[in-house]
């Protein structure tokens, strides 16, 4: 795959440059360009590839520790999309936003082009691999010679699989201690507690088996644990509608997980343990009530419900100074309730988190550096300078280390301080494996040749070892891939078999090195003792993780699922408190502790306890490339160094702060217009009771407006009006014979189909994986990077200006509406994915003066980019506001707003045209996939099989909420779902648009006592 790809695949990516630049000329000569173009063939043709036809290489996602299976869609030598691996037991074909965005890490414009070395004047300058390796070998030799190898240090970003073992072997060969496996996101306390209670680090959480779920600050849908499998399980549970589990969330802040709960109990940070004890009966309700500021009655009811309902599932994820105690108490509670074995399954454990070093260990290592005891530091993937509180002064500690080697591929804060950078391959370029579950090996293989002059760290280490006569013998394998295959259970044959499915059975070689003695962490005072007037909650951003996602524009432009803010840090503050302080959304607040202060705009939020402010973690980089540097603030700057004494887990929620209003103001960069539905029925829900009534037919009038009702006549052979309106006959008196290719009897037969989609709001958790999947599939530009800033916007040179003007391009967006809560009480969050509804009577079509949008016979609302002149009338007339306009030349490399700077353009999907300046675009129901399937079927002389393919959003959805297909054909799943009794069309009653998207109402589970309406 290493030769030049044929341009034919690439050319389309720069589409509309013609229309943009040479527009006048092309108008005259009919858009046929006469630039000299070369057809560059392969030198030797790789056998397994066909030009313009994708190969899918099964591999493993390395964006977080979980190790989901992915398929690398590769064409003409370029991997341009990651899709979930359906055969993988962990993620079953789903993939989260961070996993989707891995490809932007691969082509990141700010990656190191090759090895770098710090020169005399202290600058990092490019060098050659030979020179770099020579220097490295020499330093290693020096350290060994000096006899200080024992105190050398290797910090590795945590990953499961063989690499830790390999690494420890290598280190041992040099006489160095085992490496530290770093994952700032891992909940060390819960892991330690699980080890103690169950003997595994992360039991399988079977939400679907539960009748009641109580989460005490465990954000299992955000970043807590292995969120994709957890989300799949949770969605499956919620899809059981009537007997789905009721979900109660206890915590100071209503996270995305909390927003999916039927009930939110707002408690003070630090009081979780008291609540857990109260629930288990160990503690008294009154203490818990006073500590947590929760009414006794509420706790009483919850305890009663908990004892009354079986099976149930209780989780804890609060990261305080008593985290492990809490986790143990919850595990004990689960045991009492008989959850272990039914909803908590230690025998199906997730092993991805085995071997993670505790934060205390890392801290001890840093102390060692500061004390000058570390002669040589090697860092791969981890970025402690960013992820540990500034109070720890890692930077200073690093300066005490004589020689620092970074294997990072990106210029992050840590590698910028190192003396030698040996950039690692991106996961998509490297070999490896992971052990996500017991007896499951998830293999990792490269999808393509390296983009830049990087080398896989394991190979570098082998090369170094080979160069060292003392240990060369230990590393006979020519490279890491061989090393893997040699040790793979079953040898190369089973390895090859595993490569095809992406997963194999067996257990990878364990690390030979002895576990390091756990560091004794210095305990921190309980949060209630700290000084300040408000509690500070620092939580990992759902999209940016530990900050490693911050250099990917998709993730930066990815609105926070709860607050819908992007390209910006913010301080969440309760609305009552805000009124008291005279703070309004956008007022810049100063959050101060003894350790420091940060300033960020306030976001007035119902979903946070009134004594608490919260800041997301992951932004505030000072380096790490053009998309990350200088965006937002890093809350770690104000955190004290405190640990949970038992587990050595870092206490993120450990301090109070003083919050003051600076008087400055900055508009909040949000995609949210109005957070309320104003009774327009966009996101609808019913309670379990109403659902039962519906099933029993006791709610006729509600059913009337739904598809499938015989209130509109439609063509024979096409069942629902939704299918019939593809022919435009539902509301017009057009005669059958006048329909031409819109008649099902037409020779083309296209009109026999009606592409449609159902979105099950009971399943949807609002995680927005579909949004990123759409960006990846449809070449959607990101518009709000600092360099794309428009100087006519409110802000100058600051990220987000285009989004302040509402110019984000998300073809599918997650709308989050609040229900209730105006009185400061509990409230409900409704998530509804909004995309082009492909209306049968589309208001956008008749107003286009040039046929740039029209209704295709198979029921698509087609947007023809190259015909569009940009009157934008269609968008004015679209009631769903799902049409997006290219205000700038996002797709034109010559323009300052070009969205894919050098190498990012390699990620573009060759099947989809990149839109140029001044044209309208919108969701196409992935028409390129439809056509591809049709072509494939034609080539194989058959019809398209039911559910043969699906859209990108549906494919990625970790909740399996989206279903796509042909509503006119009973064999497709969507045809059945479209007639579900929960189904409704948005705005159908007001506007008679006959959308092709059917939403299935969310189902709420009110507390047994007070049955609140939806």
């Amino acid at each position, binding site marked *: 795959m290493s030769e030049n790809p044929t341009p034919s695949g690439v050319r389309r990516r720069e589409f509309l440059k013609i229309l943009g630049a040479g527009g006048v000329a092309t108008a005259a000569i009919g858009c046929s360009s006469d630039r000299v173009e070369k057809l560059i063939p392969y030198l030797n043709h790789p056998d397994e590839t066909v030009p313009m036809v994708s190969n899918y290489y099964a591999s493993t996602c390395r964006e977080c520790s979980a190790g989901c299976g992915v398929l690398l869609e590769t064409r003409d030598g370029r991997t341009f999309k990651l899709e979930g691996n359906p055969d993988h037991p962990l993620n079953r074909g789903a993939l989260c936003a961070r996993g989707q965005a891995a490809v932007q890490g691969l082509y990141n414009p700010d990656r190191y082009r090759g090895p770098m070395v710090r020169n005399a004047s202290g600058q990092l300058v490019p060098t050659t691999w030979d020179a770099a390796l020579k220097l490295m070998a020499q330093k290693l030799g020096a350290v060994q010679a000096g006899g200080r190898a024992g105190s050398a240090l290797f910090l590795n970003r945590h990953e499961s699989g063989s690499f830790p073992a390999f690494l420890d072997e290598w280190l041992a060969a040099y006489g160095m201690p085992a490496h530290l496996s770093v994952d700032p996101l891992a909940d060390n306390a819960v892991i330690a507690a699980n080890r103690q209670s169950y003997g595994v680090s992360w039991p399988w959480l079977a939400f679907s088996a539960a009748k009641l779920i109580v989460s005490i600050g465990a954000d299992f849908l955000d970043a807590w644990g292995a969120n994709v499998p957890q989300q799949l399980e949770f969605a499956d549970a919620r899809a059981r509608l009537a007997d789905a589990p009721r979900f109660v969330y206890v915590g100071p802040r209503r996270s995305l997980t909390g927003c999916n709960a039927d009930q939110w109990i707002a408690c003070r940070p630090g009081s979780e343990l008291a609540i857990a004890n109260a629930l288990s009966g160990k503690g008294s309700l009154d203490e818990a009530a006073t500590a947590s500021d929760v009414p006794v009655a509420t706790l009483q009811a919850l305890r009663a419900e908990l004892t009354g309902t079986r099976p149930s599932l209780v989780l804890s994820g609060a990261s305080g100074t008593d985290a492990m105690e809490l986790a143990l108490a919850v595990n004990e509670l689960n045991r009492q309730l008989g959850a272990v074995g039914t909803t908590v399954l230690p025998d199906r454990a997730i092993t991805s988190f085995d071997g993670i070093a505790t934060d205390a260990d890392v801290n001890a290592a840093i102390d060692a550096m500061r004390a000058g005891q570390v002669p040589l530091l090697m860092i791969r993937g981890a970025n402690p300078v960013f992820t540990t509180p500034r109070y720890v002064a890692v930077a200073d500690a690093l300066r005490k280390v004589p020689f620092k080697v970074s294997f990072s591929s990106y210029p992050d804060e840590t590698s910028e301080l190192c003396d030698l950078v040996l950039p690692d391959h991106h996961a998509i370029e490297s070999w490896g494996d992971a052990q996500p579950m017991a007896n499951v090996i998830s293999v990792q293989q490269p999808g393509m040749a390296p983009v830049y002059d990087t080398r896989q760290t394991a190979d570098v280490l082998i090369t170094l070892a080979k160069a060292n006569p003392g240990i060369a013998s230990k590393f006979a394998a020519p490279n890491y891939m061989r090393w893997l295959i040699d040790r793979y259970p079953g040898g190369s044959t089973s390895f090859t078999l595993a490569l095809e499915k992406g997963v194999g059975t067996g257990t990878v070689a364990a690390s030979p090195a002895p576990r390091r003695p756990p560091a004794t962490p210095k305990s921190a005072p309980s949060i209630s003792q700290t000084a300040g007037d408000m509690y500070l909650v620092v939580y990992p951003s759902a999209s940016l993780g530990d900050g490693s996602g911050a250099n990917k524009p998709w993730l930066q432009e990815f609105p926070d699922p709860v607050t819908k803010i992007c390209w910006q840090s913010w301080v969440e503050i309760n609305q009552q408190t805000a009124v008291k302080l005279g703070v309004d959304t956008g007022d810049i607040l100063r959050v101060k502790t003894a350790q420091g202060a940060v300033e960020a705009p306030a976001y007035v939020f119902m979903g946070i306890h009134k004594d608490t402010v919260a800041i997301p973690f992951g932004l505030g980089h000072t380096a790490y490339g053009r998309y990350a540097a200088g965006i937002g603030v890093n809350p770690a700057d104000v955190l004290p160094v405190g640990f949970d004494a038992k587990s050595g887990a870092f206490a993120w929620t450990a301090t109070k702060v003083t919050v003051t209003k600076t008087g400055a103001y900055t508009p909040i960069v949000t995609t949210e217009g109005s957070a309320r539905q104003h009774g327009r029925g966009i996101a609808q829900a019913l309670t379990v009771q109403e659902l039962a009534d519906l099933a029993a037919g006791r709610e006729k009038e509600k059913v009337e407006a739904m598809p499938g009702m015989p209130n509109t006549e439609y063509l024979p052979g096409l069942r629902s009006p939704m299918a019939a309106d593809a022919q435009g006959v539902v509301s017009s008196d057009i005669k059958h014979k006048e329909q031409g290719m819109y008649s099902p009897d037409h020779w083309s037969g296209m009109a026999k189909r009606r592409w449609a989609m159902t979105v099950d709001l009971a399943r949807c958790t609002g995680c927005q994986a579909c949004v990123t999947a759409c960006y990846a599939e449809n070449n959607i530009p990101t518009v709000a990077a600092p360099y794309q800033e428009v100087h006519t916007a409110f802000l100058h040179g600051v990220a987000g200006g285009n989004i302040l003007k509402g110019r984000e391009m998300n073809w599918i967006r997650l709308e989050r509406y609040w229900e209730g809560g105006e009185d400061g009480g509990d409230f409900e969050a409704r998530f509804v994915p909004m995309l082009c509804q492909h209306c049968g009577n589309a208001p956008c079509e008749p107003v286009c003066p040039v046929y740039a949008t*029209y209704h295709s016979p198979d029921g698509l609302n087609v947007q023809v980019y190259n015909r569009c002149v940009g009157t934008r009338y269609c968008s004015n007339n679209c009631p769903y506001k799902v049409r997006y306009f290219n205000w700038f030349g996002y797709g034109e490399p010559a323009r300052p707003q070009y969205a894919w700077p050098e190498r990012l353009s390699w990620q573009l999907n060759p099947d989809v045209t990149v839109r140029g300046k001044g044209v309208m675009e919108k969701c196409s129901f992935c028409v390129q996939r439809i056509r591809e399937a049709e072509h494939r079927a034609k080539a194989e002389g058959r019809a398209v099989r039911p559910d043969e393919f699906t859209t990108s959003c549906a494919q990625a959805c970790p909740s399996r909420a989206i279903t796509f297909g042909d509503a006119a054909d009973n064999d497709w799943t969507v045809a059945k779902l479209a007639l579900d009794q929960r189904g409704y069309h948005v705005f159908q009653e007001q506007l008679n648009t*006959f959308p092709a998207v059917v939403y299935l109402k969310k189902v709420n589970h009110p507390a047994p006592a007070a049955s609140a309406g939806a």
Partner: protein
Amino acid sequence: MQGIVGVFRELDATVDAVHALKKLRAGNIDIYTPAPRHELEHILTHRASIVRLYTLLGGLAGATFGYWIPIWISDYWPLVVGGKPVPSWVPYTIISFELMVLIGSLATVAGLFITARIPRITMTVGYDERFSNANFGVWVECPPDKQADVTETLKQHGATEVRGER
């Protein structure tokens, strides 16, 4: 083409002169006047202008064309927009109306040009700058033998200047 042109200062004088000339049956009479006056229009009893005919035909042609073009195109590209019938006459009425007005008025102007024989390359004989300012002119196309009488008649009715032109 030869004849006599008489320049008058007063309107009624012109009227009287023309009356006399008509009695004289000297030849074709044409009048030049700075502004249209009904008196003069009624003395030379011409048929009504036929410009209206051009207007009618132009208007009809425009209306027809305005319906034909969109309907033909709808037939050429039978694409459904907004679930509406492919050829739908209601919106096409607007096109038809506008084209009726457009082509109708252009035809009217054409009619004016043709009937009034403008644009003219030459001013021909018998014109005088004063006729566009304040004076009335009477042009009588007559053979030389009648010229004496005509000149006499014009002078007698108060022509300030009488001259023969050829």
